[in-house]
């Protein structure tokens, strides 16, 4: 009801409610979900709420906020996400999937969300990754991690303000010798299998 009073709905009959105003700062940050996948793969999904963030008035502002929200620190340079992978953008209202539970707004401030998520997926070149917020950025970033190989572990989060740097986050890095070892073992197994099949195949021919 409180929300209803503060908004001006001009939709004609049957219209879907558009991005509504927020009464609070339930999403006063860009929620940045980091999923660590096997073999050093990194999935970063950054969500802007233009229905519940007083700093993001509309969709175009949300898209602008997502264009370069945080950078990957590689040695001494800050690499924009766009240089790591192509972005995939989706619109939805599933806030619970894209923010840790402790950061969901209070139920007394239950507010509709208008969410845009930009996702980047790349393979890390280093065993640890560090993100950094360039100075002067308006939008805080809530960086939270989910280990896809161990979903029982509670998500960890950190809020980054402009100029802040994340802790070093270890990815599921496979050392080069392990990769070679895996490759060699796999190759041997495949060759053995091929040999076995060929021998049996030949034998069956002879029998026939």
């Amino acid at each position: 009801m409180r929300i209803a009073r503060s908004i001006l709905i001009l939709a004609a009959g049957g219209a879907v409610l558009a991005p509504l105003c927020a009464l609070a700062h339930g999403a006063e940050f860009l929620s940045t979900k980091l999923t660590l996948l096997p073999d050093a793969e990194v999935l970063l999904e950054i969500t802007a709420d233009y229905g519940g963030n007083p700093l993001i008035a509309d969709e175009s502002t949300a898209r602008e906020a997502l264009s370069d929200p945080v950078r990957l620190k590689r040695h001494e340079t800050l690499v924009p996400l766009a240089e790591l992978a192509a972005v995939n953008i989706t619109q939805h209202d599933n806030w619970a999937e894209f923010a840790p539970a402790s950061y969901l707004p209070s139920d007394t401030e239950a507010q509709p969300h208008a969410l845009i998520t930009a996702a980047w997926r790349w393979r890390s070149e280093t065993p640890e990754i560090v993100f950094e917020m360039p100075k002067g950025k308006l939008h805080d970033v809530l960086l939270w991690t989910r280990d896809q190989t161990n979903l029982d572990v509670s998500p960890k989060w950190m809020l980054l303000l402009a100029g802040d740097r994340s802790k070093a986050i270890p990815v599921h890095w496979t050392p080069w010798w392990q990769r070679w070892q895996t490759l060699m073992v796999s190759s041997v197994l495949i060759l053995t299998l091929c040999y076995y099949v060929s021998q049996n195949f030949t034998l069956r021919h002879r029998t026939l």
Partner: protein
Amino acid sequence: MSNRILSLLSVMAIASSAAAEVAYEFVPNFIQPPAGKETIGDGHGEIAVDSAGNIYVSVQDKDPALAGLQVYGKDGKFIKTLPLPASLHGFVIRKYGDGEHIYAAVLGEQKVIKANLDGSIVMEIPTSAFPAEQRDYVSVSKSDETDPKKKIAIASGVRIADSKEELTLKLADGSEKKIKKEKGVAAAGGLKLTNCDVAPNGDIYVVDGYGRSFIFVFSSEGKFKQVFGGPDKPLALANAHKIFIDRRFEPARVMICDRGHKRMLHTQLDGTFIGEIATEMRNPSSASFHGNLMCVAEIAGNVSVWDKDNKRVADLGTSPQMTNTPGIAPKDWQQGIVTSPHGITFDNDGNILETEWNKWGRVLRWNVKK
């Protein structure tokens, strides 16, 4: 030589006494919630102290026994809850004219109220009293027919006409745009008032902190006088969460918590920019004054104290990591460490009380060391 030593000693003495003036100690478990309650209830508001020393905390809990403006004694014991709207996001207690009153921005209803300390409302500034240029500013969008979750922006501007069939906006360039109210078209906007304060002449200053950060000035009778601030230059505010009249200065100034830009700034009472007080803060959300000091609630996890020269003289309860969430449960609270400070006040003796943005409700207190 001895004079120099004496001078040095006197400077050291002054410095140490100055430091002593701004030393605080945490008081654990100060607030005692209403009987039968573990905590005070969902907090997203403000805290203030009246001239008698009673403490007022706004609580937006769903539980009607908690919702409203809770009043505690000097000792932190619960006294009563005033039947005021639960969404008092920002309020102050000021003496002007005919006595001491509560002036509050009602976020859920987009109005300002003036109430007696017993909770009886004596004046209202309704939404309709605000200028149309800000009050009727809306963004119109349309849902994608194939994917209703996808919104396509149509235009933003001031609603100047609204019929059953169409909506007319006045755009920033002065032109008019008519938008048909077909299926999926919706508009959002309007005021989101977050705080108010009273100038020495009785004028009431109100900020649209969750909206477009405009600051409105009304007479003591509630008649609109002036508007300044907003997202454009010269102030270029973003989420100006709360404003306060800084009476440490003569003439008094407007102190703006420009939270989006992580800074505090001063303007003259007419809105003329004076200067930044501080930048790169942990998102300043609220403030209070006592003598020459100002305490500030920084929602990303800190309480700071500043002198009149804009020098930070103390930090209290600093969270080791940045925060900005209402979701930190009591089991995770640490004595003396803030989670997300949202409202703050000095009491009449210079002690600091702070209320947090927290679903369970939390108040912390630091006593000034004398």
